[in-house]
C-alpha cells in the first residue's frame, strides 16, 4: 500500500498510517519495545510530551532525509516519517535518559506505596520497578501539600502527583466545564481548584481513572482494600448518560469499586459517568460479563484468594465457568 509509511522500531518494521506517532506505531508492534508513557493518553487530544519517559532515539530521520535527529524525542508527539528508524530499548542512551527521567519523577514523590490506594495498579510504580534506582540520591525534604477534596467523591493528594496534565485534559474534553487546573509554576505547581469540592460534573470521576499515580482517588474506595485483594469482573448496565461498560472490583460478594475498563496500556476504553462509578455498587445493578483479563505480570492476578473458591457470580453461570476454565483448573490443582 502506497499511503502507508514504513517505520522500524528496534529492528522491527511496521507499516502505519501517515501521521501516526512513534509511540502508537510501537503499540501496533506491541511487547517490550513500547515506550512507557505517563502523560500521553490516546483518548485525550493534546496530551503527551510532558513526562519525557517515552523518549526514544531517532537514528534515521526518514528515507528522504536520513540524518538522525539531534536530540532524543518524545515518541508520543513525534510523527513517523517513511523509512524512519527508531531505537528504544536497543539504545543505552535512551535507557539512561529514561532512568534519569524516572529519577526526576520520583525525587518529590512521597513513595508511600504501602498506604497508597493506587499501589498495584500504579504506572509510576511499574516504571520505578523497571527503570528506577535502588536508592534515591535526593537528600532534601520532599515538597508536601495538604490533601484536599476537589469533588465530593474525589480526593486529591497532590504529594503524589507527577503533573501529567491528564486530568486537566479530561476535564476539558469529557466534562462540560473545567474547574480545576494547574496553579503556580515550576516544582511548586499543583493541580487544584480555587474553591474546594468545586468539581461537580457527571463525568468528573474519570479523572480518577486517568491519573497514572495515586494523586486522585475515589473517596468511596479509599482504604477499603488493596487492589490485589479484589477481583475485577467486567459488567455492563443500561446507562442513559454513558456506555455503561465497566469493571467491578469484588471482594467476596461486595462490589468495592467501579472503574472504567482499561486496556493493556492502562488507558480506559470508554469513559463512564459518575452514577455508574459511585452509586451503583450492587451486583443487582449490573449484568455480569466475565472476569477481566489481568496480565500475569500484574500483582492483581497473583493473589486471588477468592479463586480458591469460585466467586458466587461464577458459581451459577456456566458461561462464566467456561471463561474461567484455566483459572479454575489452576486452583483445583491445590
Amino acid at each position, binding site marked *: 500500500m502506497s499511503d502507508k509509511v514504513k517505520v522500524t522500531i528496534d529492528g522491527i518494521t511496521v507499516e502505519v498510517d501517515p501521521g501516526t506517532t512513534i509511540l502508537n506505531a510501537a503499540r501496533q508492534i506491541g511487547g517490550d519495545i513500547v515506550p512507557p508513557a505517563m502523560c500521553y493518553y490516546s483518548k485525550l487530544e493534546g496530551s503527551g510530551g510532558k513526562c519525557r519517559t517515552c523518549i526514544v532515539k531517532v537514528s534515521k530521520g526518514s528515507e528522504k532525509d536520513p540524518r538522525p535527529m539531534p536530540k532524543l524525542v518524545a515518541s508520543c508527539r513525534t510523527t513517523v516519517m517513511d523509512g524512519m528508524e527508531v531505537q528504544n530499548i536497543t539504545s543505552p542512551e535512551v535507557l539512561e535518559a529514561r532512568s534519569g527521567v524516572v529519577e*526526576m519523577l520520583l525525587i518529590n514523590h512521597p513513595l508511600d506505596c504501602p498506604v497508597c490506594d493506587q499501589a498495584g495498579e500504579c504506572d509510576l510504580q511499574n516504571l520505578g520497578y523497571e527503570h528506577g534506582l535502588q536508592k534515591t540520591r535526593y537528600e*532534601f525534604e520532599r515538597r508536601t501539600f495538604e490533601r484536599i477534596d476537589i469533588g465530593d467523591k474525589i480526593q486529591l493528594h497532590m504529594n503524589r502527583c507527577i503533573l501529567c496534565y491528564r486530568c486537566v485534559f479530561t476535564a476539558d474534553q469529557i466534562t462540560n466545564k473545567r474547574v480545576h487546573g494547574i496553579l*503556580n509554576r515550576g516544582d511548586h505547581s499543583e493541580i487544584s481548584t480555587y474553591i474546594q469540592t468545586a468539581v461537580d460534573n457527571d463525568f468528573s470521576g474519570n479523572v480518577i481513572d486517568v491519573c497514572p499515580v495515586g494523586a486522585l482517588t475515589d473517596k468511596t474506595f479509599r482504604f477499603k482494600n488493596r487492589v490485589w485483594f479484589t477481583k475485577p469482573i467486567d459488567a455492563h448496565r443500561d446507562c442513559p448518560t454513558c456506555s455503561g461498560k465497566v469493571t467491578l472490583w469484588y471482594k467476596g460478594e461486595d462490589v468495592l469499586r467501579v472503574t472504567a475498563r482499561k486496556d493493556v496500556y492502562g488507558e480506559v476504553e470508554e469513559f463512564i459517568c459518575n452514577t455508574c462509578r459511585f452509586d451503583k455498587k450492587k451486583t443487582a445493578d449490573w449484568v455480569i460479563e466475565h472476569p477481566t483479563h489481568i496480565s500475569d505480570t500484574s500483582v492483581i492476578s497473583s493473589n486471588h484468594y477468592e479463586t480458591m473458591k469460585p466467586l458466587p457470580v461464577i458459581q451459577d453461570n456456566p458461561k462464566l465457568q467456561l471463561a474461567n476454565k484455566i483459572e479454575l483448573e489452576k486452583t483445583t490443582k491445590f
Partner: protein
Amino acid sequence: MARKLLLEHINVPGINTFDVYRQKGGYRAVEKALKMTPDEVVEEVKKSGLRGRGGAGFPTGMKWSFLAKPEGVPRYLVCNADESEPGTFKDRYLMTYIPHALIEGMIVSSFALGAKTSYIYVRGEMMPQIRILERAIAEAKNAGFLGKNILGSGYDLELYVQPGGGAYICGEETALLESLEGKRGNPRIKPPFPAIAGLYGCPTVVNNVESIAATVPIINDGGEEYAKIGIGRSTGTKLISASGNLVRPGVYEIELGLPVEEFIYSDEYCGGIANGKRLKATVAGGSSVPVLPANLTLKLANGDPRLMSYESLSEGGFATGTMMGSGGFIAFDEDQCIVRNTWNFSRFYHHESCGQCSPCREGTGWMEKVLHRLEYGHGKMSDIDLLVDVSRKIEGNTICPLGDAAAWPVASAIRHFRDEFEWHVKEPVKCLDTNYGLANYANPIAKAEVTTEN
C-alpha cells in the same frame, strides 16, 4: 570609533519623540520598503545575513522564508520583548531611549511578512517601556505610518503592545504565543513550529527586539552593505549589555568580530576591570551560556584571540567555548565566588521553570538545593559529580531550551572551576567569609591541556 547602526543617534536630545527621530532620518526604511515588494524585503534581509539577536542566532531571513502563506489565513509578527535573561538588558535600553527604531522595524518586518496585525510582547516588569512604546505607536499612527493605508501604499497595519506577566519562560517563543493568547505560558511541543501554526493557530514569526530594529539599517543601506560589517557569518552590529566588575558597564553597540580583550579593556568600551582587579571569569551571552575562565575568554584553546562573534565564541564547543546568546556580557573579578554565582543562576532557573516537563521541573530544584549546600559549606565531594550527572539528565530531554539553559551554567562551572567547588567542600568554614580567589584561571592555557580537551 566603530560604526553604529542602531544607536547612531542615541545621544540626540529628544530622539525618543517622533519628530526628532524623523528629522534624523527615521522612517526612511518604511518609505523605501513600501515601494518594494514584500519578497524583495525578505530577500534583502536574507542577503544581510542577519542572525537572530535573541539567543539562538538563527538567520532571520531564513526564518521569514519558512513562514507558511496559506490563502485566507492571517499571518502575525510578534516581537519578543520579554527580555528577562539575567545579564541582558539591551532590548530595554533600546525601547526606552529609541522606541521608534523598534516601531519602524516592526512596520518594515510586518510588511515583508504580510502581517496586518503585529504584537510587541513586553515583559510585565517593564511598565515604563510599555508606556513609552504605546506613546511611540500613537505618534507614528498620527503621522500616518500605522493604521489603514500606510503612506498611500494600500498596506494596513495595526500594532499592539501586550504586557506579559513577568515570567522568564514567556521569552520562549511558543510560551510567549500561549501567553499572548491569554493562556498559561507553557511552551508548546514542537512541531508544529510557529511558522506553520503559531498565534491562534496561524503562521507566526517571533523575533527579538534587536533583530527587528536591525531591519531598519538593512533596508536603508541594503542587505549587502550590512553584510560587509562583521566577520564571516556573523554580520552586522550587536548590542552587548555589559555588567559585572567592569569600569564602565552599560549597553554597547559593537561590530561583530571585535576581540573580546578589546571589548573588556579598551577605553572605548568597558574600560577594564573595576578597582584595578584582575578578570577571573566571564559569562559571554547571558546567564544561560556556559561560563568561561579568564584565559579561555580572551584566547581560544589554540592561542588565537577570541572574537565577539557567533562562531568565535562557540569555538571549541562546550569543552572550551561558550555562546553569543543574547549578548548579556557579565565579567567577574578575582573576588567573586563562582560557586555562589552558579547557585544564584540555578536559583533563578528553579524559580522560572514552568513545571510542565519533569526533568526541568524537578532537576532545577535539585541542582539549586545541592549548590546551596555547597555554597554554605555543607557539601560533600560526591555532590560535584551528582551535579554533573543531574545537569546531563536535564540537558536535551526537555520540551523547551530552558532545561538546557539551566544545565549549561552548572555543567560548565564545574568543568572549568572544579578546584573551587572542591575547595568549598574541603574548607567548609573558610568558604563562608573568604573567596577562592583568582587561582590559575587567568594563566596562559597549557598546550597539553588543549590536546586532552579536544
